[in-house]
């Protein structure tokens, strides 16, 4: 019976998901190479699960099947190994993951748009762009985003839907400035009534007008009741029409999806000249039957009023139509197409969402995950035997498999990876310790992130430090507020940090 097979082929998938895994330059030194081996950002664990697991399981929940996973060429082996390992293959049985690479080195700094342009020929349908570092809360369902896009693109010609989440205010005490400043959130303007993203104030805009935020009058005429806020962050989750890729090919000078392309896309809905120019690309004429007729007959459906008149006396003459003139550049067929960019806002009260794209947020996400679980000692005797009876592990901690914890060691509010060896009398508070670390007796760690294979000497004291994979701290040393790199571990200098800042804008985006 080949009946099954053929039916699978016929059904084309509605969406393809594009998961972008970048270098994670903002997470250096965690993502710096360990010897010759890369440490892909996508595989950094959050609460002992690789970061990539979170977006993939989010996708699975929305029943999207096809996933294009894009990673830099050097990381292909590692990620491919992970995908074919037991842990992931068994957890995402319904996903068809196609791993693609793009040629990028850390230095060349290709933007997310270049990546999309490279793989555009592999995308045949509408698509969802998702970063590998977005940790969605359980209350936030990708299906809700897709549904908004489905409705709006069908009935009023919306071209994309973006997601923003309200970032919790960073606590002054936990922020470590030495880890690099958090980029200030971009102000966004949106319309609450129709759920439309109207304007993203890009860093370029900020450079040009750093005193004021400039909005065009045409925006405010089309959407007279706009909201403006700085408390939202872009989740970098975009559902787009296929035709958006064609527009992206046109705008070949745009590099960053988040900081340049989406803001540009927002302008089309109210700029008549851009509409005239890109309307044909974004809304190619098709013979596909739309559901307009059906929607018009729906009693629950209301067409969006372009200019809402609340309690208004009926207008005898519409100003706009009265002013029709031969100069009107807008072709008639685009009148009923809104070219909107939808927006889904996720409030802080609806659950914690974050992107683990900086050291600070990486630590925050880990800590948040700890509050969701309660630690209990392993039940199998083998693992149980590794943890000393006199070790104290608080319930808001997490300890990976086959990790050895020594006598009278105390672990609080921390994530300890797999296969670690923790000596006696060690204090670990508020840390993230990756796999295969060795912490010698009497060491004290507070608010640190230890890359994998880090070795901490006896009685060393580290406070708010980040170590590169394979870093070795000598016994008795003490560091505070530092990024510890293998290359310059003897003389911690400032040059590496400056490099980070220079690359941060790209790294942040290449997700």
């Amino acid at each position, binding site marked *: 019976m080949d009946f099954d097979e053929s039916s699978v082929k016929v059904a084309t998938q509605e969406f393809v998901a594009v998961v972008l895994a970048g270098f994670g330059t903002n997470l250096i030194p965690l993502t710096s190479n360990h010897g010759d081996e890369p440490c892909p950002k996508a595989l950094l664990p959050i609460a002992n699960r690789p970061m990539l697991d979170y977006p993939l399981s989010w996708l699975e929940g929305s029943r999207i099947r096809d996933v294009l996973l894009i990673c830099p060429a050097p990381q292909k082996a590692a990620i491919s190994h992970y995908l074919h390992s037991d842990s992931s293959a068994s957890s995402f049985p319904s996903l068809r993951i196609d791993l693609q690479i793009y040629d990028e080195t850390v230095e060349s700094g290709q933007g997310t748009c270049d990546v999309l342009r490279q793989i555009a020929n592999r995308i045949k349908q509408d698509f969802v762009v998702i970063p590998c570092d977005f940790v969605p809360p359980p209350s936030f369902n990708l299906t809700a985003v897709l549904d908004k896009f489905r409705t709006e693109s069908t009935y009023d010609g919306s071209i994309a839907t973006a997601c923003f989440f309200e970032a919790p205010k960073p606590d002054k005490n936990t922020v470590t400035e030495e880890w690099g400043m958090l980029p200030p959130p971009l102000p966004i303007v949106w319309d609450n009534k129709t759920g439309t993203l109207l304007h993203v104030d890009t860093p370029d805009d900020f450079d040009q007008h750093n*005193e004021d935020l400039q909005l*065009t009058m045409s925006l405010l005429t089309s959407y007279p009741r*706009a*909201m403006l806020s700085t408390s939202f962050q872009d989740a970098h989750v975009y559902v787009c029409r296929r035709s958006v890729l064609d527009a992206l090919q046109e705008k070949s000078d745009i590099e960053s999806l988040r900081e340049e392309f989406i803001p540009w896309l927002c302008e089309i809905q109210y700029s*008549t*000249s851009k509409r005239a*120019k890109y309307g044909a690309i974004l809304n190619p004429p098709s013979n596909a039957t739309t559901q307009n007729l059906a929607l018009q007959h729906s009693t629950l459906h209301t067409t969006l009023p372009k200019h809402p008149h609340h*309690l208004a*006396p009926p207008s005898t003459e519409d100003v706009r139509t009265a002013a029709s003139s031969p100069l009107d550049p807008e072709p008639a067929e685009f009148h009923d197409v809104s070219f909107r960019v939808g927006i889904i806002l996720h409030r802080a009260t609806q659950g914690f969402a974050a992107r683990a794209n900086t050291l600070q947020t990486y630590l925050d996400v880990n800590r948040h995950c700890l509050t969701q679980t309660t630690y209990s000692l392993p039940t199998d005797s083998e693992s149980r035997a590794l943890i000393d009876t006199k070790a104290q592990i608080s319930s808001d901690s997490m300890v990976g498999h086959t990790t050895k914890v020594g006598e009278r060691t105390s672990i609080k509010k921390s994530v300890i990876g797999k296969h670690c060896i923790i000596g006696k009398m060690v204090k670990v508070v508020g840390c993230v310790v990756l796999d295969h670390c060795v912490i010698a007796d009497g060491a004290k760690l507070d608010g640190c992130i230890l890359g994998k294979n880090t070795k901490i000497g006896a009685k060393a004291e580290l406070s708010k430090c980040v170590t590169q994979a394979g870093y070795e701290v000598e016994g008795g040393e003490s560091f505070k507020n530092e990024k510890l790199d293998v290359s310059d571990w003897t003389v911690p200098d400032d040059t590496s940090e400056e490099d980070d800042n220079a690359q941060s804008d790209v790294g942040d985006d290449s997700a």
Partner: protein
Amino acid sequence: MPPKSSAGKEKDLAGEDDVLQAVILADSFNRRFRPLTVGKPRCLLPVCNATLLDWTFESLALAGVQEIFVICRSYAAQVKAAIQESKWSKPTSGIKIVPIITSKETFTPGDAMRDIYTHGIIKTDFVLVMGDLVSNVRIDEVVRIHKERRKTNKDAIMTMVVKESGATHRTRSRADYGVFVLDTETSECLHYEAAVGYPPTRHVRVPRDVLAEHPEVEIRNDLIDCSIDVCSVEVPSLFQDNFDYGDIRRDFVHGVLTSDLLMKNIYCYVVKEGYAARVADTRSYDSVSKDILSRWTFPLVPDDNHPSGHSYEYLRSNTYIAKDSSVVLSRTCKVNGPSLIGSHSTISPGAVITASVIGQRCTIGPNAVVSHSYLFDDTHLGAGVVVEQSIVGARVAIGEGSRIARGSLVGDGVTLGTGARLGPFERVSRRRSQAEDEESDEEWEEVEQNQGDNTATVGEGSNAIVWPKGPSEDDEELEEVERYDNQRLMRIGDDAADLLAHSAADASDSSSDGEDASDASSVHALSTAAAEHEFQAEVTQSLDRAFAEGHSVDNAAVELKTLRMASNVDLRRVREAVVAAIVERVPLVAGGPAAQRAEIAALVARWGPLINQIGGVDPVETVEVLQYHCARSTRQPLFGQLLAALYQDDIVDEDDIRAWHASGAARGQGLKPGAVLEGVKHCWRVGGKMIEQFDAQESSDEEEDEESDDE
């Protein structure tokens, strides 16, 4: 706890003593209603047969105001008299109205506020409104909220009442509006940005430090600013301290919000229910009148609570007719709603009234048509008069068969003769007799002095003077809001389609930000076309002057050069314009070819050199331009003679004609078949004949050679 109870008592006493005061700025401080407002203040213009001032009093009475100060400037005596006569000055009215006359030097609302401060009349929080308000909003509720807020925050000095509408609501002014940035929680106004319609405001700037303190704000472009402000006592003193504050919104609100020193807060009260609007210009006069007739202002409607105490009967389709059965409606007249007809008015047979307001004691002649217009009291329309989208003042008489086109304003007491023809947006007023002692008015005098012969417009036996159209000379010096182009958006009956088309084209320019090259170029082409058009008109005028006044060729050339530099157009355009001017100025003479030739020769001899003086000598192009002009013009037969005359005066020589004749353009290449191509070909053949003659008479004197060319 004696201290506490006494404090409570004090507060109670204060509450009892509180008399809600209101200040009306009765003067308009602008000239938008000219010439209706010559000899009369704006606040005494009737809206639905009640003066604006009465509507404002009624609105305030509805809000529970007990004491009103009316600040008047122009025609203060009339305002005073009107207040005394009104029902509000009766002892039973419960409202105390005090007119305050300010000096002639009060030019802005800010000056008036400073005057209020010096008078010292304000003792408590008060309501500040303009003398053109029509509203049914419960202002007392706003006052209560304002006072509540003042208890916790002494710096909350003002609460602005704004009405929720839409961005393109008809009562919302397109020419003068504001964008409010509000805090979503407290509706504190964080920023105010004034905008004008033309040249259109492109950008709204929200200061970034607003965002630092308020993470989520709302930018509202859908609010009608009704200019109802609940102010605290400090407001007049703030005006006094900042003597440069003129306008309450543009200067005061904007200034207070952006000031780093004042540290005061201004709040908004967004009205969702109810009606509030200002009659700030003739356009809003129209829309507010219609809103009243459509009962949006309920309970302030003509059949109930009419501010002047008239009583009207409310009939179907929002038609109101005076109740005292003094209105004479003929059997064959037609009144379409929403309309209002005052008492003792007569509508003759066959007259049609559509969506208009007719004052008291008016007569509408037989078969007259009044649509979307407003006639004040005691106005008489003759038979067959047509009035469209216009405002006609009181005691006006319009002769038979006259036509008042849309947007016209006819001042009080004007008489228009039979068959007067007022074009669109014409403004006329009465010529004053010498004896009258009116308040002096420079503009009026100026208009009177500059009267030409307007009999065709205003008709025989009229006493009207026509006001100038178009921007005044000092337009540039006016504030942006009051400039001519912007004012056009405030005129009754003006859809200003050309301005909006312009601004739409400009909008695409600004939004392209230079990144979309083609956008910019298309706009550029558009503006070039506009510039060329303007240039053509200028050149024609300039040459007209030169020809008429007999300028020297040099002077004319200098003038043309300047024009060309100013408009940045092609040299060829200048050549075309000059050639065209010369061709069109050839006097057509009936006396045969010879006489005609003499005329042409004289003209070319006088003005021909100008062609080569405009900068750059290109005889081949000159011939080509001449050919194309003649081909399009009715003066095509003159081509041969003109070419010969140019040849005679050495403006073109033989080689140039040959070169022209050989060129593709001369044969009409690239032209679409049609009359023009035919003309071009014909001229080419005429040129061919001329060349044949050159060939034939190579050495001989060519005195008679163009004989064959004559038609």
